[in-house]
């Protein structure tokens, strides 16, 4: 596979603690990559190293099969977690300034900015000071500044924190658009649920170490829980008699006459075996597999147990 960005055995230590130990990560071209992990796991450190804001102590970063160099900043767009603008500076002027620092020429930047401002309905605010804008509008401006120079790699650190739901949807739309047009996107977030449906690949980081990496659907397959939930009615026999040693009953709950049971299938048994066991003894109202979320997988990886198993 063609990787746009590779991190190889990256280690970074601060005066007091180790932020990254021997982390490798491979981001395929034109994919959406989720860099997931709890707060303080080292995500922002890794992103800052990719952005060449800080240097790694050991290991290397490869961009487009070249060792990462200062010239690559023009091919990367970065929306940091801690983001802001000059409050007293005019919106348009500021956007021009920041994109010029990304290597864009003045007239080209102006033309593109006008287009984006039009698209995000920001045109009337071009000559206003940033402090006059609502928070949502400021975030749109920051987003535009991040993507304006058409970077091959976009990095969003906690992109949805602080965005209202409407803007989150606009943002997701635009991000999918950008990928369609050839960009590669890295999302970094501790809120794993928020990007799960967007990501093609993920890497999980915990306490400075990468604990998992791969394609989302393959990870999900590998972490099949084999836990199923069924709603049953008119039980003929006690559950302990219905479910033999091939199954483990995790939980049963009766509400309004309907029994909800959660069962794990052991060994080489299949869903058919479970259904076969249930059918003669009860009326099966529903039957579904409990697929673990990224969050569940993370917890399983860290603690060895799915939160579903209770």
């Amino acid at each position, binding site marked *: 596979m063609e990787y746009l960005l590779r991190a190889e055995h990256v280690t970074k230590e601060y005066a007091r603690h180790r932020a990254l130990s021997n982390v490798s990560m491979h981001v395929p071209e034109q994919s959406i990559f989720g860099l997931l992990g709890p707060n303080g796991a080292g995500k922002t450190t890794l992103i800052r190293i990719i952005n060449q804001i800080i240097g790694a102590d050991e290991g290397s970063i490869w961009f487009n099969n070249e060792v990462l160099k200062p010239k690559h900043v023009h091919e990367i767009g970065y929306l940091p977690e801690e983001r802001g603008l000059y409050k*007293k500076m005019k919106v348009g002027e500021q956007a021009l300034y920041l994109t010029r620092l990304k290597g864009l020429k003045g007239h080209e930047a102006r033309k593109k900015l006008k287009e984006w401002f039009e698209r995000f309905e920001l045109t009337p605010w071009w000559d206003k000071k940033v402090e006059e804008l609502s928070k949502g509008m400021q975030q749109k401006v920051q987003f535009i*500044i991040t993507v304006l120079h058409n970077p091959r790699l976009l990095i969003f650190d906690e992109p949805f924190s602080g965005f209202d739901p409407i803007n989150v949807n606009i943002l997701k739309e635009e991000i999918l658009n950008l990928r369609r047009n050839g960009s590669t996107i890295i999302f970094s977030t501790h809120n794993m649920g928020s990007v799960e449906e967007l990501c093609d690949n993920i890497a999980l980081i915990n306490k400075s170490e990468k604990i998992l990496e791969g394609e989302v659907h393959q990870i999900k397959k590998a972490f099949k829980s084999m836990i199923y939930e069924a709603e049953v009615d008119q039980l003929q026999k006690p559950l302990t008699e219905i479910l033999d040693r091939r199954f483990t009953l995790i939980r049963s709950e009766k509400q309004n006459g309907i029994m909800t049971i959660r069962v794990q299938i052991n060994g080489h048994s299949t869903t058919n075996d479970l259904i076969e066991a249930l059918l003669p003894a009860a009326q099966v109202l529903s039957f579904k597999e409990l697929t673990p979320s990224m969050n569940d997988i993370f917890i399983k990886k860290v603690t060895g147990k799915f939160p579903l198993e209770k």
Partner: protein
Amino acid sequence: MSKTATIIKREFLSRVKKRSFIVMTILGPLLMAAIIIVPAVVAQLSDSDYNIAIVDDTRLFYDRFDDTNNILFTPLSTNIDRAIEFMHEDRFDAVLHIPEIAFEAPSSLRLFSEKSVNFNAKLLVERILQTEFESLKLGHAGIDKEILKAIETPINIQAIRIKDDGELITDYPEVSMGLGFVSGFLIYIFIFLFGSQVLRGVLEEKTSRIVEIIVSSVKPFQLMMGKIVGVGMVGLTQFLIWIVLTFAIVTTFQVIMPDLFRFTPDEQVFVTSTQVLSAEEMEKQKEQIQQFDTTAGQIMQGLSAINFPVMIFSFIFYFLGGYLLYAALFAAIGSAVDNEADTQQFMLPVTIPLLLSIIMAQMVISNPSGPVALWLSMIPLTSPVIMMVRIPFGVSYEEIALSAGLLVIGFIFTTMLAARIYRTGILMYGKKTSYRELWKWIRHA
């Protein structure tokens, strides 16, 4: 355009376009011009005449009181009660009474007035009477006026400096003092004003959280230097506008009202000489003294002794060198803290050498070639102010070169130090930074 240039341009323009900059740039020269012009105007305004009637019961001193510019004497032959009535009729501002016994008992002298007495007039009257009484007493003691005249020996030493090449130049320490102190003080003000602007600028970028966006495009060092240079250019611009405008305003006034600036010698000086000098002699002496003693004349002579190319060149050099040295430190402080209140603990060690140099400037002025002056003008933290104080007195090129070299090394050093603190500091939020922390940043960077 390089990125650093883009940053410099923004830092410069965003400040120059601010209303406060425009206001200060216009108000500054107005204030400076006012300092020069207002005293001259006030001096002219206060020139209303002050009339003193003299009632001399001894009849010895009537002709001894000569009018000055604005103090006029009128001898009256009436008695004192009548004279006071005249004063009440507003014909005089004050009445001087010299009673019969004045010569034996000077404490019986009286100066009456309705309003509070004019202080200058009182001084003048006292001076005249003292001189007259003294010469009368000398006469009584049998000392001849001619002898007295021969004894009077005015001393006016010309200070001559012998330069290394043997050239002799007349020294005017007063002018050197003034020039040295003013230029040292200007550098001090400039460093403080614009250094703290750098600090606030860095802090603004940090607290508004724009800094991480910027350092993903440029190196932290470029951002820091861009700010320092940009703000420095703002300072230079403002300074140059100030000088040009002040000069323009003062010159305009000189053209419109030339009388204001004609320096006239203090006439009271010559009253004492009336007895011993003929009118002709007095004129001659007057002219002589006028040439030497007028403030304007002395300043002109003093200024002509100053080496202006060296002065101007070194002013610009120390102006910029001092600013660069301190601005880097101010930038480091701004990056290390989260808000303006926290700057205090780090400001102190940076401002102390600056304050010290302006305090020591007074000592340096009184002994510009002494060891304290020499050392302080070599240490880069104090040399910008102290060397500027010394240069008008004449400093050898070797010393200037050494001090300048040390200053360059000094600001390269502080800039490197600051860069290390800066690139870690700008991304640190939340916890209060300690000196130990700073030291770690410097070592680990």
